[in-house]
Structures are given as structure tokens and as C-alpha cells.
């Protein structure tokens, strides 16, 4: 074996908090790599600031550091651990950039640490556009004409030589951040300024547009001997012009001839060799001119990526695992193919099925943001569908997306929505086909390859055939093979989905579960990784009384992300430990849960009633679990139970009691929780009457909303009227507006607990840093609580446990409580594992998920010893930080409110609150300027509270500036403060000042629709220029604490303790 013997200890860099462009695919790659390296007997030191990951479970590596992925922190860890090498290729762009920084700071050299997988020169050759273009020239590959601009002037000159449209690509940014496309000089100027700012090196590649070309990506691997394999070819349905993360993509490629494909493969191989990728995974993106087959190289990444996670799931080839093993010296022909177990890893997967990926967007969360797709990634998650044909796989994706839109619902066609890429394009495209648009015309409108359009056309056209024909076996089978869901069939045939299902089952039209085997059936494979298809006869039904079906959480979205995958995976491990087999169902290719070796069997299927029932019916398992995957499986549970399957843990009755507001309030009151006064109103008239009793401020939201959609704090009658007029579409007799008393300035806490038959454990109480009014997913939090009085904390735990008893919870319960004047208010209860579970587990060392599994399995108190799990046990202080995607949605306000907008979280651990805060903020990519100007614009009610803060800033040597009222208040209180104009007072105003780089920190509190809108420019400019902007007074105070700590610069780093 060629494994290197000189490497005994490696540091693996993670990718930090989830944001757009860098999501849980790196938990998948990191976890895989970690497991592989540990199995090789290496000491693995893992660094990642994202607590919601499986990879940061203390059990996974030799030692785990949940610390910021920044040089000063990582330097300390390296000094402490003295590893032989650092692997930077598995943690996305963050890890790669960090490696470059560590190298540039001379730390790697000083400590004699080797970079494995990609050396600095290699990273630079691939990532630095100018150097990369040189590589391409050398091997004779073509690329778009481009100019590197480092100043605004150079950029403008470049545009003159290139002509419009022009693409802007800032160097060294994630997911094309700060880039974009400009069609006119005017638009170009704006984007150029942003792009220059976004690039950490102030370099922007200004590039000729290849709009409308076909786009491809090859996922490749290479070992130190030069063996090169393409794991997967991916074709984008959306032609060039849309970021590949936002494109619907297909694997393997469908429209290139063998000749064209092999030439592309050759070029990829040459690029990898010339860039100097010695070992590991990489990807190369190409564009092909549909007119004449001309091919150009778009870019390459010398690391595993989002698309390599997709490629791994699509083919069964564990890219990250193999990359890790290659980096320590193995070669591809020395490693087994994990799926077949009989052949080797040096092969190119052969697929006898088609895989489609469809991105999931969240434009509706970002008011003001335009739903337009470009070269900058906007999607927040993705689903993957595997089918025997493209049509089957494509339609599966749309069943998996969990959106209200359906491809088969008639709608008013908007041609613009067909012609211009946007998140709704497919729905309009399908409508256009229903309206009789020809493939030729649609090809002209969209430049989507006709082959794809024909596939869509076949799906749509069959609707008519179906309507004319009978609902017999042959037609049902045809429809299923075209990817029709029961819902789709029901719509066309005017029946209910359950009638369709019954009809199907009576006619034995059921899916076959085929294996993903990496080799198109050439070799037998034992790995139970399945997808369903109607292109074969169904298998006989089996009985699996020792199998538990785990329902995953589906595509990442704001409000339901990696935290739930963490819970799912961790619980799979625990169920297995307790002797059960687990079958996992999920549709999200980025996750650890959809790794074929996480569970005993994996079904890559939609989390949809139809798909799950087919699997349950096929497996006849002991039961299913729906407490761990967030709200998705909870919503599915009733239908599954109705069909005779058993749910583990809390009963439907318990869940209903917690989720039915009316019944729940009654129970809460019984137990001494206060409940905010509340009412319902169908109209503004009713609302006004109700508010008379409740009193302002109030929180309004339409019923049936998730993640706080359209939830707003309303302070007076004028705003209430405005609220009703703006949201009139969502408020009706059937769907009234819910009005709650808003507990202003209340302290909010999250309580996560597990209850068994005769025992319970409180996992922890997280105190929110921001006061009530900010969605719990968006607020920072700290454990143990810093402001909550101990007796109140005791009391709320007692109340929570009693409530869990009353609800008869078996498993998880998450409570969101507010404390005002020492009284405990119940905000809401979630009878499931929550977003905060992984954070709590890591902050306290309590293996909360394991306990939840034991609870569901009916473990007794004597078997669990609950008394040993004490959350407030003198461990470190842990702060949860939050990451927002506002940079991608500049037209949307970054002010925090009751609607969740964050994509990810970080964790800072410290010996005290300030150290933990500092780390959480750094990890959340907050800038912490040590000097400069602090700009304040405060609403009246915050002025008194924040005067001390302003004073502190001044004493620390910062200068102050503020707009009218705030400036006067500060001056009246004896502070030196520069007065600047508000935006409506003319120029230069405060926004100009921020934009010109004079301001280092902004504190801007505001409320009420009008004031919020008036101050939007302030926050927007902060987002654009990465200036810290605090919009809430408690958060501002916390920021100050972190700043002070930062100034002292005396932090420590701590490995995570193993679970209790």
C-alpha cells in the first residue's frame, strides 16, 4: 500500500455556517473524509464553526474544535495540535481561502505543516483568473475573452473592448458572490463597483458573455500516479447565464455526442494536470456553442464542491472519501469501490438511470428582491430525483420541492417568465406547452436545448391522451413512466390522489426499487441504495419488523436546514446502536443523511405522501419516525398513520394538542404559563375591535404560515390598516389574520427537552440575545443564560416538564418562551426535534438526539439515568451566531423581525460570555473594526438605553456620527457627535458617508413601516460594503462586548468535550 507513513495527524478544515453557495454539502464531504481518515488510524483534528453539522460531533474525530475559521484562531489550534498536515479541499471556498491565508501568514511554514490535496500554487492557478487563463493558453483550451480589472477605470475600459452583455466575476468569492451580468453601461457601472468591493483582492474578471450556450460540468478525480477518472458529467438545462447552483441540471449529460464528450473529457484532464492538482476531486465547467459545437472553459475548482456532492449521490461514488484517502497517499487502484465491494475505485461510474437536480428558491422571503436568475447564486437548497428516464427523474424533483406550485396546474402564462430565467420559469414553460407553443418557438425564447423541451412536451401532451382515454393499467403505467404523481393524475382524471393510489394498487401499478450500483448492472452490488421506477415490475412485498423508516427533512430552505439533517443522522446512529435497521428517505443530495453508508438502506425519494407510502408498503417496517426532520415529516404523519403505519414516539394526539392553538392555549393556562393575549380577525374592522382589548404593539400574521411568513409587528392603527391592505390576498374568512399581543422588550428563550415514559431531560435553555420580536432562528442565543434570573429559569423548566407530561410527549419537545416581568409566556411548542438541538447538544455535551431515540423506543428511567444529564453544568459559555444572505438580495431589507431570513448559524465557545460572543460574531463573518466612526440612527425609545453604549464607543476611541435627532440627543448628553443628513434631507447624507467608506460600524434601530422604509438605504449600504449593522439594541450591546474582547485579543481555543 502506498499510504504515506509520515502523516499521522491531520487537520480537516470545515466550511463554517451555511450560506447561499456553501451549504451542508460540505458537512457531507467533511464527515465522509473524517470517517475515512479515522478508519485509517490517523488522528483527525476537525475545525468548523458550524455546530449544526454531523462532522462537529465530538465522537467523529479525534478532537473537534468549534472555532472560527480565521487565521488567529486556527493558528492557535495548529500550535496546540502540531499536525503533520492540513486538508483544505473538503471545506469549500472557505477552507481553501483559509489555507491560502495561513500560508501567506507564514504559519504553515513556521509550524512545518503540509497542505494535502492542493498546494498554494495549485489553488492560485485555479482560482486566480489571470493565472488560470495562462494554464488554458498553454494547453490550447479556449475561454471567453476577458480583462482583469483592479480599478473602476480599468473596468470601464475593458467594457469598451468587450461589448455588452458582460459578465463580472470577482476573484476569490463564494458562489459567484458580487458577480453578475450587465447588459448596459449604466448597469455595468453599478455592478463593477460592487464586484471590486466584494473581491478580497479587489480583482474582477470582466468577461465576454456566452449567454445561451449549453453549460456542462465534469466532476473528476486524480491520484498521485496521474490516473484520471470522470465521476460524473452534468448538463445544465438552463443555458449559460444562470449560475450552475441555480440551474436545473441533469446527469449524465444528455445532448453531446461521444466525440464531443470525449474531447471535453480530454480537456478536463489536461487542465487538472496543468493546474497541478496532484490528488483529489475537482470540477471543470464548460460551455458549448449550440450553433457550431465550439467549446470554452468557464472555470475549475480544485476541491470538492456542491456539484461533487451531487455527483456522489448521483453515481454512488464517494468523492470526498476517496479524495481524503488519495491525499494521504493511496491511489485509485488501491481502493475498493464501496458500492459493489468487488471492483476498484478506478473506474468511471456507468449510469442506467438519469438524475435531475432542481434548486429551491426563497425569493418570497426577501421582500423587494427581484426574482431573476443570473450568474450570482440565489437558491437556498436543492432536491435530486433519480428515475430510469429523464422525465421520471425530472418530475420526481418537482414532487420533492415542497412548494405550492405544481407543473400541472393551469396558470396565466407570462411570456417574460419563460424568456428570462427566474424561479418560476418551469411552471410558465409547462403552461406555454399546454397553450400549444412549439418546441422550436420555446427554444428560441429560452435557448434551452430542444431535446429537453421535447421531454417536457411529452409529459404535457400525455395529459390530453389521458383525458381522452381510460384510467386503465396501460395508461396509468404510461403516466407513471412519464413521471406523473398521483396528485397529477388525480388532477387530470378528476379524482383524488388516494383514489388514484387505490386504483393503481388494485391494478398492481407499483414502483420497482432499483439499485444505484455505479456500474449499470455490470457487477452485482450489495449496497442498498434505492430509487423507485415504474419501468419494471414491482418486487414482492417483504416484512421488515426490525426496520425503522426515518423521514428526512427534504430540501434546505430558510427555517429548515442542516440542523434537521443532523438530528436525523445522529438518530440513525442511535437506532442502529440499539439494534434496529434504519431505512432513510430523503430527497436532498447535499446531506449526510443521503450518504449510502449512513443508514442501513437509503431511498432517494421525495418526502411526499405518495413516495413514502410506496416505500412503507414495500418494506412493512416496524414503524416510521417523523420527529427529527423538522416540519416536513410532522405534516406527513397523519396520512401515513391513516394508511395503517405506526409512528414511533409522541402520538398524533400529542402533536395535535401542541399544534392546535386553541387546545394548546387551554393546556398552557392550566399549567400556569401566561399566554400573550390573542385574537383572530377576517377584516380590518374586526381587527380594530380586537386590538382594543389586546393593546398595541401586536404581532399580525395570516394563519397557515411557516417560518414567520408575512408576520409583522404592528405598533398603531395606521400600521394595522396598512398591514391589512398589503396582505389582503392572504386574509379571508377561511384564513383569518392571527393577532397576538407583542411582548415588547421581553426576554425570549428556547427550551429543548426529551421526555421518556417515566423520565425527562432538559437539554438546555437558550437565552436569545435580541429581545422578543426577532424570529428565534434569526436571533443570537447564549447558553447558559446571562440575564435570566435563576429562579425564573428553574420555574420555566419545571413548567416545561409538566407541560411535556400533559402533552404525553415521547421524544422531543421544543418550547419557545418569553419572560417579561418574571412571568413566563408560552409563545409556541414544537413536538419534535428543533433547530436548536445540535447547538444545545454541543454546548452542553448532552447527547440529546440519542436520548430522544431512547424515549421513542420506550426506555425506562432506570435504563437511561436521566439525572446525569445536567445542562447547566459549568461547561463553557456558548453563543449561537447567525448568518444572513442579504448580500444576495440587496433590494431586500436586512432589518430583523418575526420572519426568519437567516441561512445558517455559527457557534462561539468561550470561558465567558464575551469570548463566546466574539467567536460567534467572527464566525458569522462579522467585521469587528477596532477603530473608526460609529454611525448611530436610533428610534426614540432606544436612545436612553443606548446612550451608555455610545459613550463606551467614544471612550474606546471611536468617533461618532448620527442623523438629526440621534445626534442632538448624543450631543445633549455630552458626547462628541458629527451630525449627518438623513436621506430625505439631501446630499451628502448618511448613506453617502457609509458608501464612501467613512463609517466602520452602524447602529440603526427603527420600527414602524414608514421609518423602516426611510432608513432602508442605511442598512442596504452596510450590506453592500460588509459594514456591521446592528438593528436591535441588545444585539448592539452584545456587539460592544465582543469588540472589547477583540481589542484585548486574549482568546483561547478549546476542543469540544465528548458527549456525557
Amino acid at each position: 500500500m502506498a499510504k504515506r507513513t509520515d502523516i499521522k495527524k491531520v487537520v480537516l478544515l470545515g466550511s463554517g455556517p451555511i450560506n447561499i453557495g456553501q451549504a451542508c454539502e460540505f458537512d457531507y464531504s467533511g464527515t465522509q473524509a473524517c470517517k475515512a481518515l479515522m478508519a485509517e488510524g490517523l488522528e483527525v483534528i476537525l475545525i468548523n464553526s458550524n455546530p449544526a453539522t454531523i462532522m462537529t460531533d465530538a465522537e467523529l474525530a479525534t478532537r473537534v474544535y468549534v472555532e472560527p475559521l480565521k487565521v488567529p484562531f486556527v493558528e492557535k489550534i495548529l500550535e496546540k495540535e502540531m499536525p503533520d498536515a492540513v486538508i483544505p479541499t473538503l471545506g469549500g471556498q472557505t477552507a481553501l481561502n483559509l489555507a491560502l491565508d495561513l500560508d501567506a501568514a507564514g504559519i504553515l511554514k513556521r509550524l512545518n505543516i503540509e497542505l494535502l490535496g492542493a498546494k498554494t500554487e495549485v489553488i492560485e492557478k485555479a482560482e486566480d483568473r489571470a493565472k488560470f487563463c495562462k494554464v488554458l493558453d498553454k494547453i490550447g483550451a479556449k475561454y471567453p475573452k476577458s480583462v482583469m480589472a483592479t480599478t473602476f477605470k480599468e473596468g470601464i475600459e475593458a467594457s469598451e473592448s468587450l461589448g455588452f452583455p458582460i459578465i463580472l466575476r470577482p476573484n476569490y468569492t463564494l458562489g459567484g458572490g458580487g458577480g453578475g451580468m450587465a447588459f448596459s453601461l449604466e448597469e455595468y457601472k453599478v455592478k463593477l463597483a460592487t464586484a471590486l468591493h466584494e473581491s478580497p483582492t479587489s480583482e474582477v474578471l470582466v468577461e465576454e458573455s456566452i449567454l445561451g450556450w449549453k453549460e456542462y460540468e465534469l466532476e473528476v478525480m486524480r491520484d498521485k500516479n496521474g490516473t484520471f477518472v470522470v465521476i460524473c458529467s452534468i448538463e445544465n438545462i438552463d443555458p449559460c447565464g444562470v449560475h450552475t447552483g441555480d440551474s436545473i441540471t441533469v446527469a449524465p449529460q444528455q445532448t453531446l455526442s461521444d466525440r464531443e464528450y470525449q474531447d471535453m473529457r480530454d480537456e478536463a484532464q489536461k487542465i487538472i494536470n496543468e493546474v497541478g492538482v496532484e490528488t483529489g476531486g475537482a470540477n471543470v465547467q464548460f460551455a458549448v456553442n449550440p450553433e457550431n459545437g465550439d467549446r470554452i472553459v468557464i472555470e475549475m475548482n480544485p476541491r470538492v464542491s456542491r456539484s461533487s456532492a451531487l455527483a456522489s449521490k448521483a453515481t454512488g461514488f464517494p468523492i470526498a472519501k476517496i479524495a481524503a484517502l488519495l491525499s494521504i497517499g493511496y491511489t485509485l487502484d488501491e481502493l475498493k469501490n464501496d458500492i459493489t465491494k468487488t471492483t476498484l475505485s478506478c473506474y468511471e461510474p456507468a449510469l442506467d438511470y438519469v438524475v435531475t437536480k432542481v434548486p429551491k428558491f426563497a425569493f418570497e422571503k426577501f421582500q423587494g428582491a427581484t426574482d431573476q436568475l443570473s450568474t450570482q447564486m440565489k437558491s437556498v437548497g436543492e432536491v435530486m430525483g433519480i428515475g430510469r428516464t429523464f422525465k421520471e427523474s425530472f418530475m420526481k424533483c418537482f414532487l420533492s420541492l415542497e412548494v405550492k406550485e405544481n407543473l400541472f396546474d393551469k396558470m396565466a402564462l407570462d411570456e417574460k417568465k419563460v424568456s428570462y430565467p427566474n424561479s418560476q420559469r418551469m411552471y410558465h414553460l409547462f403552461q406555454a406547452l399546454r397553450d400549444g407553443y412549439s418546441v422550436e418557438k420555446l427554444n428560441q425564447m429560452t435557448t434551452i436545448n430542444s431535446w429537453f423541451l421535447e421531454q417536457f412536451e411529452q409529459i404535457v401532451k400525455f395529459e390530453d391522451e389521458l383525458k381522452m382515454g381510460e384510467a386503465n393499467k396501460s395508461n396509468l403505467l404510461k403516466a407513471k413512466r412519464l413521471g406523473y404523481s398521483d396528485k397529477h393524475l388525480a388532477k387530470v382524471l378528476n379524482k383524488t390522489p388516494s383514489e388514484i393510489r387505490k386504483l393503481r394498487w388494485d391494478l398492481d401499478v407499483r414502483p420497482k426499487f432499483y439499485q444505484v450500483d455505479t456500474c449499470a448492472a455490470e457487477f452485482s452490488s450489495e449496497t442498498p441504495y434505492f430509487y423507485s421506477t415504474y419501468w419494471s415490475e414491482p418486487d414482492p412485498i417483504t416484512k421488515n419488523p426490525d426496520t425503522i423508516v426515518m423521514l428526512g427533512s427534504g430540501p434546505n430552505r430558510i427555517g429548515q436546514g442542516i440542523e434537521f439533517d443532523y438530528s436525523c443522522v445522529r438518530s440513525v446512529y442511535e437506532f442502529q446502536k440499539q439494534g434496529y435497521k434504519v431505512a432513510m428517505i430523503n430527497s436532498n443530495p447535499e446531506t449526510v443523511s443521503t450518504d449510502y453508508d449512513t443508514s442501513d438502506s437509503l431511498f432517494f425519494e421525495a418526502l411526499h405522501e405518495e413516495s413514502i407510502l410506496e416505500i412503507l408498503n414495500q418494506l412493512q417496517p416496524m414503524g416510521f419516525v417523523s420527529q427529527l426532520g423538522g416540519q416536513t415529516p410532522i405534516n406527513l404523519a397523519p396520512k401515513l398513520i391513516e394508511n395503517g403505519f405506526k409512528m414511533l414516539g409522541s402520538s398524533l394526539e400529542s402533536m395535535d394538542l401542541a399544534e392546535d392553538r386553541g387546545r394548546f392555549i387551554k393546556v398552557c393556562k392550566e399549567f400556569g404559563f401566561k399566554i400573550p393575549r390573542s385574537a383572530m380577525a377576517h377584516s380590518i374592522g374586526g381587527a380594530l375591535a380586537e386590538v382594543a382589548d389586546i393593546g398595541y404593539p401586536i404581532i399580525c400574521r395570516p394563519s397557515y404560515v411557516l417560518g414567520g411568513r408575512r408576520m409583522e409587528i404592528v405598533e398603531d392603527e395606521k400600521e394595522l390598516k396598512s398591514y391589512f391592505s398589503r396582505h389582503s390576498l392572504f386574509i379571508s374568512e377561511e384564513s383569518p389574520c392571527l393577532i397576538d399581543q407583542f411582548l415588547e422588550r421581553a426576554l425570549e428563550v428556547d427550551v429543548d427537552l426529551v421526555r421518556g415514559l417515566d423520565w425527562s431531560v432538559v437539554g438546555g435553555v437558550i437565552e436569545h440575545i435580541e429581545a422578543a420580536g426577532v424570529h428565534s432562528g434569526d436571533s443570537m442565543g447564549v447558553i447558559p443564560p446571562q440575564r435570566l434570573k435563576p429562579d425564573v429559569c428553574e420555574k420555566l423548566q419545571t413548567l416545561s416538564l409538566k407541560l411535556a407530561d400533559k402533552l404525553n410527549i415521547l421524544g422531543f419537545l421544543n418550547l419557545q418562551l418569553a419572560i417579561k416581568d418574571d412571568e413566563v409566556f408560552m409563545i409556541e411548542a414544537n413536538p419534535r426535534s428543533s433547530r436548536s438541538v445540535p447547538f444545545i447538544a454541543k454546548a452542553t455535551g448532552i447527547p440529546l438526539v440519542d436520548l430522544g431515540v431512547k424515549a421513542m423506543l420506550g426506555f425506562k428511567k432506570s435504563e437511561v439515568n436521566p439525572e446525569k444529564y445536567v445542562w447547566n453544568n459549568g461547561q463553557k459559555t456558548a453563543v449561537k451566531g447567525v448568518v444572513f444572505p442579504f448580500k444576495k438580495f440587496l433590494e431586500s431589507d436586512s432589518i430583523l423581525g418575526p420572519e426568519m431570513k437567516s441561512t445558517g448559524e455559527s457557534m462561539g465557545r468561550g470561558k465567558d460570555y464575551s469570548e463566546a460572543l466574539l467567536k460567534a460574531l467572527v464566525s458569522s463573518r462579522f467585521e469587528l473594526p477596532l477603530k473608526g466612526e460609529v454611525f448611530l440612527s436610533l428610534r426614540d425609545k432606544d436612545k436612553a438605553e443606548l446612550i451608555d453604549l455610545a459613550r463606551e464607543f467614544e471612550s474606546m476611541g471611536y468617533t461618532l456620527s448620527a442623523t438629526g435627532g440621534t445626534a442632538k440627543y448624543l450631543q445633549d448628553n455630552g458626547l462628541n457627535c458629527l451630525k449627518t443628513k438623513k436621506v430625505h434631507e439631501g446630499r451628502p447624507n448618511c448613506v453617502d458617508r457609509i458608501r464612501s467608506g467613512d463609517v466602520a460600524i452602524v447602529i440603526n434601530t427603527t420600527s414602524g413601516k414608514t421609518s423602516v422604509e426611510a432608513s432602508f438605504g442605511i442598512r442596504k449600504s452596510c450590506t453592500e460594503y460588509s459594514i456591521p449593522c446592528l438593528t436591535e439594541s441588545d444585539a448592539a450591546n452584545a456587539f460592544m462586548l465582543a469588540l472589547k474582547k477583540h481589542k484585548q485579543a486574549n482568546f483561547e481555543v478549546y476542543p469540544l468535550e465528548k458527549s456525557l
Partner: protein
Amino acid sequence: MMGSLVLESGEIFSGVWLGGEESVGEVVFNTSHSGYEEMATDPSYYNQILVLTAPMQGNYGESNDFWESENIWIKGFVCLEMQNSKRDNSWLKKLTNKGCPVLSEVDTRKLAITLREKGTVWGAIVEGSGDEAIKKAQQMIDKNKDEKGDWTKVVSCKTPYTLEGADKLGSKIALIDFGCKKNILRELQARSREIKVFPANVSSEEIKKYNPDAIFLSNGPGDPANVIEGTQTVRELIGYKYIYGICMGHQILAQALGGSTFKLKFGHRGANHPIKDYIADKVYMSTQNHGYAVDEKTMPKDIEITHLNLNDNVVSGLKSSEHNCASVQFHPESHPGPHDAVTIFDYFTEQTKRC
């Protein structure tokens, strides 16, 4: 209309009959994602019903440039989906116009698993389904199954012809056409002065009359053990000039050197087979298409095994310094498949110049 592929072992795989004429052949599957046209025109597929495991075929149309010979040699084309739209059904038309039966909507995965487990079998593509189809097919198989014939003679050119090479200083090559792919000719032409292509039944005297610098043995269809004449000719030429070959040429050379071949359970057909090349000390991907292989145990001791298929360690290349010859089992000329092994032609060419 329904159509069926019936295996001689009795299994029936029904699908949609898309045209062509009913026929009989050895049923084989290939796992390449692309390259249907190259495969269908590769003479090595003569007498075979080609099952493609990639779901859709015909998706990128057709082009005469992709042809590897002047004919469609396969006896049938079986797939899950066939490109058949108003805009483009060119590949389907091309096949059926030549009389090649096309069967789509067949559960090709189940079929491939059956072939993998049972081994390569004969079969017939017939119109219709059910017992009647089975009966008809079995009669056809009984009548047409041919396991003893020397198929290389069927597909080979009938009279010699000469091709000009691109390298004025290169060698003069005598090529025995056992069913040569065009791209082998192209790769050789690029590296030689002149190539004279001889039919499969050429005698050693005729070759010697041409006085070549080296002799190339091409790929071709069928069981090498049946290629008695070709093997004899090569046996007579060993030691005369440098001899090199590909696929069938490799098997014939092995036989001529005293070794024998055996039938693989279900063959190697695809574009993703890993090869360990001991000459270049490299591992790379190769295109493969063979149902038989050289039996290492039967090879004389002085023969060096130069290439191995890493999936099952089957001999994939050999060399003999003493007898001045070398060959590979796989297809460095690709078409379809990866180009990784194309440098073997350079290696071969160098050897032709040494003598």
C-alpha cells in the same frame, strides 16, 4: 406495436417494436453513456443484438462521421427509450432503414442483470409478445444460431486496398482486416507511410510479397478459436516482422503464439474499464468490447503480460521480445470512449521502426 427480445434460455423481454426486420444474434450489453452509432457500425458487433444500458439512445442524432465501417453490423438494437421526435428521429430511421430491428421500452436493467447472471446467450428480436413470440423466436434461434463460424471472414474486406499514411518517414504496414474499425485505420495512418489492408483470409505469402515493415492485426467479431485460417497465417508470420494487434488481433496473436482463449461469462463492453499498463506504468480508462479473452495459464512462459483489466484481472495486453510482437485486448482507438490509451499507437509505431 409490441416486440420482444427472447433469450434462448427462455426469458422474454417485451417492449415497443420500432421497425426493422426480425433477427437472431448473440445478446450483449454495453454500459457506455454515448457512442451508439460507433458501436452499431463496429464490425466486432457482427451477429450480436446490442443492449444499451444507458436509458436513452439516439438523443444526439446521427452523423456519418461516427461510422466505424460501411455497415450496421448489429442484429438488433435494444434500449429503454429511443429518441423519436418530429425534430429528430434520425438515428432510429438510420437503423430501421438498414433493416436493423429496434426495440425500445425494454427493462434493460433487468435484461442486463439476467445476462450478467446467466452469461451471454443467443436471442431473437421478434414482433409481438407472449408465448407466440417465444415460440417463433426459439425456432429462429435454432435455425440461425451460429457458434462455429469464422465471422471475421464475413466482415472483412474482400480485396486488398492501400491507404496513404501521413508520416513520410514512417513504416509500411500490412493490416489484416478481421473487421477493422475506421478509427484504427485513422490512428495508424497518422503514424505510418503506407498501409495495405488485406482480407482476413490472406496468406502469409501475400503479406510477405508486400514486404511491410510491420503487420497489424485488427479487431473483429466472434470466437477467436474459430478463426483458424487467420491464426495460421499469423503463426507463419511470427518472427518475420513486428506484429501488433488489437482485440481480435490480440487474441489471434495469442493463439498463434501457442496460447488459447476462453469465453468470458458476459464479456467486457463499455467505456469505463480500468487498465493497468505495465509498460507505461499507468492506470487508465479504456473502451472494451470483447466476449472472449486470452487465458494467461496457456501462454508460453516467455510471453510478457503487459496490460491487465483491473476489474477482473483478465489479460489485456501482451508482448514478446523474442517473437517481436505485442497486442492489447481493449480499444486504444476509442470511438466510442475515452482517449486515455491512444499513446499505445505511438508505442506500437516506435516498435515498427525498430526493426
